Structures are given as C-alpha cells and as structure tokens.
C-alpha cells in the first residue's frame, strides 16, 4: 500500500505545487498586464474619470487610471510632472505650456466643448430686451459679445438696463469666470474678448496686445475674488442661484453633464447662452509616459469611451451621436456652431494673462 501511495502522493504533491505556482504566476501576470497610471486633469473632467463605466471600459484596455485635479493652467507650473503619466488640461494653450516644459510628447484630443454662458430665464429676458441676447429656433439664446463688450467699457449696471425689474441690482453686468491666472476657462474668455476688443481680429502682435489690454483689464479686475478651477463658478451658479451668478462662463460639457444626472441641479429657470462668436476648448491629453500616451490613444479610438464622453457632455468627432443625445434628452443645445474663432497663439495669450496678473496684485 505504502509503495503505491508514496509515488502517487509525491506526484500529486508536485502537481499541486505546480498548479499553485501556475495559478499564482498567472494571477501575477494578469496583475502586471493591468497598468495603473496617474495623471493631472482639469476639474471639468473629474466626473468622467470617476464614472464606473469609464473605469470599466479603461480596465478592458488594461488601464487603471488615477487622477488628481488642478486648475488647467496650474498643471504646467505648480506640479512636478515627472511624477505623472499624463497631463490632461483643458485648452490648447495650457497644453502648449506643458509641452514647453517637458519637451516633445505625443498629444491627443479625444474630445472638445464650446465655451458657453450659464444664465437664467429672467436674465435672458432682460438681455433680450436690451439687444444682447436673441432667441433662435425657440430654444437657445445667442449672446452678442460685441454689445456686451461695449457695456463693460461703460461699467453698465444691471439696474441701469431696460426692463430690469427682475434683477434691479447695483452690480456691473459682468460674466463671472475662474481666476485667469490659474484656469483655462477664464483664459478662453480672455481669448474671446481680446478678439472683440481687437475689432473682431485674433490678437497677433505686440502692438495689438498693448492696445487691447487696458480695455480687457476691467473684465477681470472688476470681478473681485475669483475661483481657481472651472468647477467653482459652476457650483456657485447651481447652489447659490441667480443672485450670485447671473452670467457665468463655463464649458458646455459641464452643463450637459449636470443636466443628464439624476437628480440633476439643472432647473427649468436656467438658460444656456451661446456667445457669438464662439470658441472651442480642446481637451488635450499630453502623454508624459508611454502608458500615459496609450490612454490618449484609447480615449480617442475606443468607441465605448467616445460614447461615454458624449454622455458626459463632451463633443467628439461623432456629431450625430451628440445631436441624437440632445434630441432624446430634450437639451436646448445647438448641434452645430457656425461662427467659431481660434484662440490666439500661446505666447500672445500668455502675454495678455501676465499683463493682467501685474494689475491683480
């Protein structure tokens, strides 16, 4: 019996050991194949990366993504980028600034979104009566930046406007933004307004810059205290209401994302105004490591992730999907924007921000 048992037992023991080693190695191999990467993102993409569906789709591509949020313009200056696999700021200029610091790296633009003004029905009515806003196709409002700019130069106040009974407030008519020194959405506002101040031309020279800066200063200085990242002003808009935030410059994606939530903070008296001309914010992923770059690739190419981006309110190359979603969820957003301008070059925008920063101290 023992003679029979010994080899069998010995064999089985070896087999068991082998099996154990095999499964263990296998487990380790599977773990190894899943790469954990860490990146810095603008706060407007936090909800996207926190979405379990997004995490699941990334896991299918063997990626576990950890994110830290920061003001898009701070990413380039306030962080040690060597510690991260990717940077994902909002806006081409912020990405360019990062690239200047880290050298040539692959970049991807998986999605983009236009700059919009979050407002309120009573405010839109007042602005309409004063010729700054008009309704089109019964849904959305176009916001005339040229006329608005003239008001900012005259320090026009809400109570001075025609038919302002619904908002008889002694505050300047001013679009609220984030801190222009820290965050992209305010820089995009600066890009738009510098185009207007420069007589409907993108600012391209030192002379033009010197010409527009004095006119642009009040747009920022008169706001007083400003928030660091694009989430702040939106949060004020949603939770403090019209009295705090009659006009707020945000990304369209932020509004759509909130509107698609259940429960949602979007109420019927809120209104989205589309500035004319408009400007797109490109969300640029800078691959700092090889795996970081792979994330950029995956976000741009994976159909599921592109679909999820649409559900988070971003626009992708698939305009049909965006339109279909807007229609099915009854969102008052235009499928296509016609009059779109480009932001000035990184150097010009940076120069203007620095000139404003000088005055903010």
């Amino acid at each position, binding site marked *: 019996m023992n003679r029979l048992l010994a080899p069998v037992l010995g064999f089985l023991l070896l087999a068991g050991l082998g099996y154990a080693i095999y499964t263990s190695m296998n487990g380790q191999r599977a773990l190894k194949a899943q790469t954990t990467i860490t990146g810095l993102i603008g706060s407007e993409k936090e909800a996207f990366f926190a979405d379990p569906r997004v995490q699941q789709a990334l896991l299918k591509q063997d990626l576990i993504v950890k994110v830290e949020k920061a003001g898009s313009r701070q990413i380039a200056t306030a962080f040690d980028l060597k510690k991260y696999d990717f940077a994902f700021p909002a806006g081409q200029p912020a990405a360019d600034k990062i690239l200047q610091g880290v050298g040539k790296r692959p970049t991807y633009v998986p999605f983009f979104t236009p700059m919009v003004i979050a407002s309120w029905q009573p405010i839109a009515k007042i602005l309409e009566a004063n010729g700054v806003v008009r309704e089109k196709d019964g849904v959305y409002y176009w916001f005339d930046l040229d006329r608005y700019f003239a008001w900012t130069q005259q320090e026009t106040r809400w109570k001075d406007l025609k038919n302002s009974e619904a908002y008889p407030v002694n505050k300047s008519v001013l679009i609220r933004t984030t801190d222009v020194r820290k965050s992209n959405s305010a820089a995009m506002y600066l890009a738009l307004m510098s185009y207007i101040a420069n007589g409907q031309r993108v600012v391209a020279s030192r002379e033009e810059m010197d010409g527009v800066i004095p006119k642009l200063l009040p747009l920022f200085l008169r706001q007083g205290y400003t928030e660091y990242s694009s989430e702040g002003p939106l949060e004020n808009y949603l939770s403090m209401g019209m*009295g705090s935030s009659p006009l707020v410059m945000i990304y369209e994606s932020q509004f759509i994302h909130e509107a698609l939530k259940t429960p949602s903070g979007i109420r019927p008296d809120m209104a989205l105004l589309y500035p004319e001309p408009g400007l797109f914010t490109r969300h640029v992923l800078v691959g700092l490591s090889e795996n970081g770059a792979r994330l950029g690739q995956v976000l741009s190419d994976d159909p599921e992730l592109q679909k999820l981006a649409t559900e988070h309110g971003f626009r992708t190359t698939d305009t049909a999907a965006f339109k279909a979603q807007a229609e099915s969820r009854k969102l008052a957003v235009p499928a296509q924007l016609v009059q779109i301008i480009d932001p000035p070059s990184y150097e010009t925008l940076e120069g203007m921000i620095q000139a404003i920063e000088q005055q903010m101290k």
Partner: protein
Amino acid sequence: MNSTTTPKSKFNLFNLIVVVIIALIAWSWFGGKSNAPQPDGQNDSRALRVLAGSELKDIEPLLPQLEKDTGVRLKLVYTGTLDGAEQLAQGADYPLAWFSHAKYLELLEGARNRVVAREKIALSPVILGVNQSRAKALGWDKTAPSWSDLAARAAKGEFKFAMTNPTSSNSGFSALIALIAALSSDPENFTLTAPQQQTVQDFFKGQRLTAGSSGWLSEAFVREQASLDGLINYESVLLQLNQSGQLKEPLTLIYPREGVVTADYPLLLLDAKKRADYDKVVAWLKTPAIQQRLMKDTDRRPILPSIPLEARFGSQTLIELPFPGQRSVVDRILTSYLDEQRIPAHAYFVIDLSGSMQGERITALRQALLNLMGGDTSLSGQFSSFREREELSFLPFRNIVEPAVDFTIGSGAGKEASLAPARQFAQDLTPGGGTAIYSALAEAYHKIYVAQQQQPNRYYSVVLMTDGVNNNGMDFDDFRAFFAQLPADTRKIKTFPILFGDADTQAMQQIADMTGGKVFDGNKNLSTAFKAIRGYQ
C-alpha cells in the same frame, strides 16, 4: 482490480484534499506576496488635525459617523478666521484647514501657496436677525430694508445691534464687505464718496456690542437682548438662536435688499500626502444624506444643488455682493473701518504694578502694551494696534490707585507723535507695593461714568490685568455695592480680566460675569491675551 479501486479512490479523495490544502498554502504564499495589503500610514487611526474656524464647532457631532464610514478621524483645532489665515501664512503645520470662508486666506501670499485643494461643503449667508416686534415696527418684516435703510435707523438710535469685529471674526468681516459693496456706487472697486462714507459711519452708530468671535457674540446677545434690537451673524447661527428657547421673542431674519456675502465653508487640503483621506472626507461630506443632515442639524444650506431647501431658509433670491480680489483692497476696507467708520473706542487699562510684578512679569506687560502701540508688525498685530481717534486711559495700581494717564491717538501724520508718550509711559512702568484690585476697578468705572456724560458715542471697555490677590482697599462686596448704584449705561461696560501669575481665577470670573465680560488667560503669552481682547473693544 476491483478490490483495489475502492481504496484507491479513497486515496484519491484524500490526496485531493491534501493537494487542495497544499495548493491553497502555496497560492497564498506565492500569490499572497503581491496581494497582501501594504501597511499604509493613511489607514491607521491617527487623527488628522484640522485648523478650523470656531464657528464650525457644531460640525463636531458628525465626526464619529465620518470615522465610522470612512475610517478617517478628524481633530478640529479652533481659531479665528484671520488668526488662522495668519498662522497658515506663517507655516503652521496642519494637513487640513476648514473655515467659514477662505477668501481672505487665499489673498495672503504665504497662505495661498499652501492650499493644494479646496472643496466647498455648505453655505450660510451673513444676515441680520432683528427682534420680531422691532422688525414689525420698522416694517422690515414686510419689505426687506436696504443697507442704507439700516444705516438711517441706526443713526437715529432706532436700530441697536451687535456685530463681531471684522478684523477678528468672519461674520463681522463679511457684513462689512457687504455694507461697503452695497453702499458704493462702484461696488466692484469698493470705493466710497464722502456721503457714502457718512452712511457707513451712521450704520456703525447703531453698533452697541462687539466681540472677537461669532459664538461669544450670540451668547452676549442672549444676555443683553432687552437692550438690543438685533444682531449680525450667520443665517445658521440665527436659526439656531431661534430654536434655542433662550430668546424672549424670536428674531426675524433680514436679508438686506442690495445683497449679502455668503460663507461657503471650504475644506482645504494643505498636505498633498493626505490626499486620499481628504478625498474620502470630501466625498462623504457631499453625499446627499450627509448634506441633508448638515442642513437639519447645523442649519446651513447644502452645497449640493439637487437637495431642496427646507422652508425656514426662505425662498427669496439672495444677491451675492462682490468680494475683493486683492489683499490691498481688503486691508484698505479694514483700516478704514477701524480708523474712520466704527464708533471710536475708549479703552481703560487697569494694570497691576504690585511688587510681585517685578522681573519677567513687568517685562512681559511692557512688551504687551508696546505691541499694541505698533510694536507687533504681524498682520493680526497691525489690526489689533491702537487706532486713530481712540482714547486710552491707564490706571496703574498697587496698594493705592495711581492717577490715570490718558492718551488720544492722533489721525494720519499725528498718529506717530501721539504714540511716542504712550510708549514712554509703558517703558517706565515700575512695580512695587500691594494690590488694590477693586478700588482700581471702581475708579475706572467712575471715570467711565464721567466720560459717558461728555462723550456718549464711544465704545467703552475695561481691561483688568493682575497677577495676584486683592489685599488693599475695597473688597469684592464693596465693589459690588458700588457697581450696583452706577447708572445702567455704565453698568453695561464690560471688564475683560487677564489671568496672570497668581491671579485669583474665581475672583476674575466673578468680575467678568458681573460686567458681561470674558476672562482671558495671559499665562502662556500675555501679549496674545491683550491682542485677543482688542477684538472685544
């Protein structure tokens, strides 16, 4: 064959068990290495220290639940908003900070750079609570007054209110910013024309009670509600006062027409290494259930827009007034408040020069006084220094009360010249003799009574600094009898005793209770105690 199969299968079963056990052991041994939880400093039970505004004390009952749900224990260390900002600017070591707002902090260069992340947790506007009958009489229950309506009533003596000192407490600070923004014809620049400046002065004519903290202000209001018409505080504090059962009549909440400044309670991350814990705490605080509980238990408005406001918050549109974006503007507003707008103060310093004050004690006293005369150049030091238009009376005592020495702080260029003799006086203080506390205190109140006849529109207060026990002159009963026959207006003047050396804690508390004041401990740092009292003067 058949005879062997049965035992063999038995062995197989046995072997299978063995194999499974070995496999399990081997798997846990090999595989376990990569899977075992790493010992993680973030998961241990050491509490995270949070430098917090004292108005956040009512959050404390929620903390055990936070620890249960997230494993993160917070330990709140309380301070005033401005003090806290200064501490952080000077590098105080806290991983987290939590104030009713962080706007001023973010304007201070040294503090701003330390903030790694910030998340607003709840909202509460700084507004007025006015006794129901008074609100009705003034028609404010029907139509909300403007800030200039308030100023007009205050100037006529028809609206007497309590408000904290804007340089030491955030509720007073927010109210001052709102007032200036509301009255200015250029609210984004916070500039005032001469008539507007007059309106601000009119407003502060109604301020009959000040304090260094919002909490103490409400307590003092409860004690003095009969002689006050209302107070300025957070909406949350006023709602809690109404539920406290301590008021003779409820407060009507007044939201001034031009608007208010709202506290947004940001939780700040200062130490990037604590990010994981910070994220957990923020996520927990922003869950709908906890936001609901914050609204129910602490009367603050939720930051989550999806949570509907309960009825007691009212439904009116709250206009949020601009807040300065530059430190220089804030400093200008605070300086103007202290030097031009507030009721000028008259502070009486009753100081012990008995023999026991010799040595280190007299040095500390001289330094504390010199610090208030411009010797302390820190931010809080500047704001707590003696102000333009202020009158000072020093009553040194030993076994007898020495003649009072008076100084008036000059304005503008005259300020330095007026401080020179005061500094000399402080330098020359020399101890020796006994301790006649109550006689000295009685002398101070007598002088206040006389001064009130000539200048009823000053804010009077007494600081009593002693390092020993009364052994000359009046005793407590004599003083109580003397105090009782003073006119009501004089009895309202508060004494702020400072405990120093061998001072009698109980006797000092008696004096504070009788006069409505508050005891400060000067043993750790006498200068700090003097500085803190400035918020109450």
